[in-house]
Structures are given as structure tokens and as C-alpha cells.
């Protein structure tokens, strides 16, 4: 299944990254690096600044410090958000949703010739090819998450950023996602994702970073994810600036 290529995703360097919002310290002195072509997970307690860090990386937050992306052979970012804000009763099929996201031709005109096969392939990769005519709002949380993952694959990303992609996924969905991410990694894509399931992180990540406003630890999962460290991070005491 894997097609070896010379493509290589970017390396990312977070250097003394800080973020203040409305007088509150969200992030302070966050320093770590993501190696190219690896799966890097970000973990941490709720409110620890994980999503804010991702938004800093995407250039959507007025952070201090530096985030350097050392692009490899391409510079396409795929982003899979945690959720969408939309009316669940909207008459919009999965195909319409993909058309809205991926092409310029209005979604009500349907998928164009160029994007039809591409969308079909992406939906097939996430196991949703049989549900392209289903109303998008009527999908289960896990199914919607898979469609969101599919849109992150168009155009082919060099860096894929995922915000808690495991939310709502059942075993089959989680397995599809794991295989897909492993496949993308083989193709050289750098994958950065926020994840809550530490067992999954241990299984598939090459490196892990724990954020709780400050950097708590960063390194290989086998070394860093010790019971003591996990207990320490997820205990009620939070980090300070």
C-alpha cells in the first residue's frame, strides 16, 4: 500500500513560544522541536494550551518567541479541526461538504471533474466512500471526524496538523486513522497532533510533548510516558507562568 517517495515534510522548531490573552498567561517559554517525517503528539491537561499552541503554529495567534518551519520538498499544510460550528439540519451531503472545502466551484454545482476523483479517493482512505450522499449533519461524531480527516488530505499535505482526531472514533475508525497516519508518515509527511489517549500515543507516536502552559516534557514516548510523570501532569495542580 505504501508508495515510497523522496518527499519529506518539514521540521518544526518552537523557540521560547509564549502567549498572553486578555491578561491571562496561556503559554510560556515553550521550547521543543518536531523532526521531519515523524508523528509527534502533544498531550496535556484541559486548558493547558495545546490548541492555542497549534493555532500559534498556524499563524492565528499573536505569540511571542519564534516558530520556525523548515520546509522540505513542499509547503502544504493540512489541518483537521476538532469540531465545526454549523447547523446539523443543513441539507448538505458529505460530498457537498467536501466540495465546499476543496474547490472554488460553488458547492451547489456539485463536485467538478478535477476534484471528483480526488475527493472519492480521500473518502475511500478514511472508509467513508459509501456515505458520500449522507447528510453531513446526520453523521455520528466519529464519522464526521473521518470526513474532517479526509478534507485534511486534499491537497496532499506535507505537514498534517490534527486537533484531537480520536474524539468520537470507534475501534474501526481509530484503526483506520492509525493506518492512514502510518501510511502518511511513510510518505514523508510530518504529523503533529493533539491527542488525549495516552495508549494510542504510546503506540503510534515517534515523539511526544506534554504542555501545561509550560513545557513539561518532550521526547520519545517510551522514555517520557512514565506513570509518575503522567500522574504528576494530570493531577489537579496546574502549571504557572
Amino acid at each position, binding site marked *: 500500500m505504501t508508495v515510497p517517495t523522496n518527499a519529506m515534510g518539514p521540521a518544526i522548531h518552537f523557540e521560547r513560544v509564549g502567549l498572553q490573552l486578555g491578561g491571562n498567561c496561556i503559554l510560556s517559554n515553550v521550547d521543543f522541536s518536531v523532526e521531519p517525517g515523524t508523528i509527534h503528539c502533544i498531550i496535556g491537561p484541559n486548558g493547558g494550551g495545546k490548541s492555542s499552541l497549534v493555532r500559534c503554529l498556524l499563524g492565528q495567534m499573536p505569540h511571542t518567541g519564534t516558530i520556525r518551519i523548515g520546509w522540505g520538498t513542499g509547503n502544504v499544510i493540512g489541518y483537521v479541526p476538532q469540531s465545526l460550528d454549523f447547523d446539523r439540519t443543513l*441539507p448538505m451531503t458529505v460530498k457537498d461538504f467536501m466540495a465546499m472545502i476543496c474547490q472554488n466551484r*460553488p*458547492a451547489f454545482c456539485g463536485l467538478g471533474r478535477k476534484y471528483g476523483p480526488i475527493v472519492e479517493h480521500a473518502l475511500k482512505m478514511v472508509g467513508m466512500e459509501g456515505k458520500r450522499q449522507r447528510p453531513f*449533519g446526520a453523521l455520528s461524531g466519529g464519522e464526521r471526524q473521518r470526513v474532517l480527516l479526509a478534507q485534511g488530505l486534499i491537497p496532499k499535505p506535507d505537514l498534517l496538523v490534527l486537533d484531537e482526531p480520536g474524539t468520537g472514533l470507534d475501534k474501526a475508525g481509530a484503526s483506520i486513522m492509525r493506518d492512514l497516519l502510518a501510511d502518511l508518515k511513510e510518505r514523508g509527511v510530518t504529523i503533529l497532533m493533539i491527542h488525549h489517549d495516552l495508549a494510542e500515543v504510546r503506540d503510534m507516536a515517534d515523539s511526544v510533548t506534554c504542555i501545561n502552559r509550560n513545557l513539561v516534557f518532550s521526547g520519545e514516548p517510551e522514555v517520557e510516558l512514565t506513570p509518575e510523570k503522567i500522574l504528576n501532569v494530570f493531577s489537579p495542580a496546574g502549571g504557572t507562568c
Partner: protein
Amino acid sequence: MHAFYDLLRIPLIEMGRNGVLPEFFQYAFVINALLCSLLLGPVLGGVGTMVVTKRLAFFSQAVGQAALTGVALGILLGEPISAPYVSLFGFCILFGLLMNYTRNRTNMSTDTVIGVFLSVSLAMGACILLYVTGKVNMHVLDNILFGSVLTVNDTDMNVLLIISGLCLLIGIPLYNRMLLASFNPSLARVRGVNATLYDYIFILMITVLTVASLKIVGAVLVEALFIIPAAAARNVSRSMKGFFLYSMIIATASCILGIILPMQFEIPVPSGGAIILVASCFFALSVLIRASSTAFRGASA
């Protein structure tokens, strides 16, 4: 443009006189109103799908009400009462942009911001109207509030033609981007869509369309033509294609029937009211279809 309109009007007027078409076709103002409907219906119906999807129904209501203040300002500044377009466009665009700016900068919920601006605009309108009541016949204001086919002239048609053309040129290529901006601003930005900018463009589109539709539908009711056809279409659609297409058809049919039916049956009602009542009938029908058809059961979670 007058010659072009005459090219369309004269044969129809002749057919009205000869009895080929109903008698009321012999009046130029009827043809004007129907031509406007053919422009207005598809555009409002299409844009309405975005208004409903982006949950901005109440916003268009506020802009419609602001138009009243725009008219009062226009009269105060000496513009012609039948076409105070400079004040109308000026005030409504300022109103819409300021409202969106306030919402973005304060992070207040949309309904609160609209509620505040709507009240301020109405209060201003009430105060200015007091000054201008001596200058004009207040019945003229009824035309602005509830629409009147009698007042549609070539200037109004030119305004509507230009605005509709602009909205089509801008709205169709940017349709997906404007929708995506409301689904998830972060995702939109990653995909090169400046969510804030596209929100402003959309707000401008609704505002200028509202002003351009005033003569036909009226300030109080124009927002209904954004919402009711789209809401009715939503009830009987399963895809974006059906949603958009049905909304355009229902809006156009409502405009045409709302103008023709009162004349056919000689019912003295304002065109805006008649158009919206027809649209409401379509909506009621769509609710019945939705409620009785098994095809839509389980279509929404």
C-alpha cells in the same frame, strides 16, 4: 437603459392591450415590477441560502430597519424622497459594517449586537422623522416600509440591475469561501480564506441587496425574502443543489405571484406584504411535505 427597458416593455404592454396577456400588463409599472422580480427572486433566494446557513437572519432584519433611518436622513439632506439612494446606501453600509466590526471586536453574541444596533437605528430614525414630517407626505414612507410596485421606475431598475450583477459576480465565485468562514475560521484560514474579510464581503452583499429591494418588498419585510424561501427549500432538500435551486425558484415565484395575484383579484395590499404571504404559503407547504414524507425522516440528527 430606458430604450432597453422599452424594448421589453412595449411588446408586453401591447399584448396586455390586445388581451393576449391579462389586462394589467398594459401598465408599464406592472412590467417594471415583474422585471425587478425576475432579477430579485433568484438573487435573494440564492443569497438567502447563505444567510440561513450562516445564521444571519436577524442581521438582514436589522439592515432593513436601518433603511428607514436612511430614508429619513436622505429627506433631511434634501435628496428626492422617491429615490434617496445616496443616504440609503451610505447609512445602511455604515450600519452593517459597524455592526460586524463591533461583533468581531467585542466577541459579543450576534443577537445582542444586532439588538443594540437595531434599537439605536430605530431611535435615530424616529428622531429624524420628526424633523422631516413637515417636508413630506408620510404616506410615502409606507412605500419604503412595505414596498409598492407603483413607485418602481427606471432608476430603481438600474440600481437593482447593477447590484444584482455585482452580487452574482462576487457571490458565486466566493460562495464556498463565505460558507467555510462560518464553519470553522481556523480551518478557513489554513485554506487561505480570510474569514473576517469574507464576513465583511457577505455583510456588504446583504446590505446593498436589502437597499436595492426596498421599492418592491419594503424595509420591514425584505429580510423575510432572504429567509422564508431558503427555510422552505431547506425543508424539502437533501443536498446543497436542491437547497439553492428550490430557494431561488420559491423566491422568484413568490415575487411574481405576490405582484400578479393582488392585481388579478383587485386586492389593495402592498406588494411587500403580498410577496411575503405567498412565500409563507410555500413555507407552510414545505413543512407539510417534510412532516408527511418518509424521505426526510432521519435526515437530520
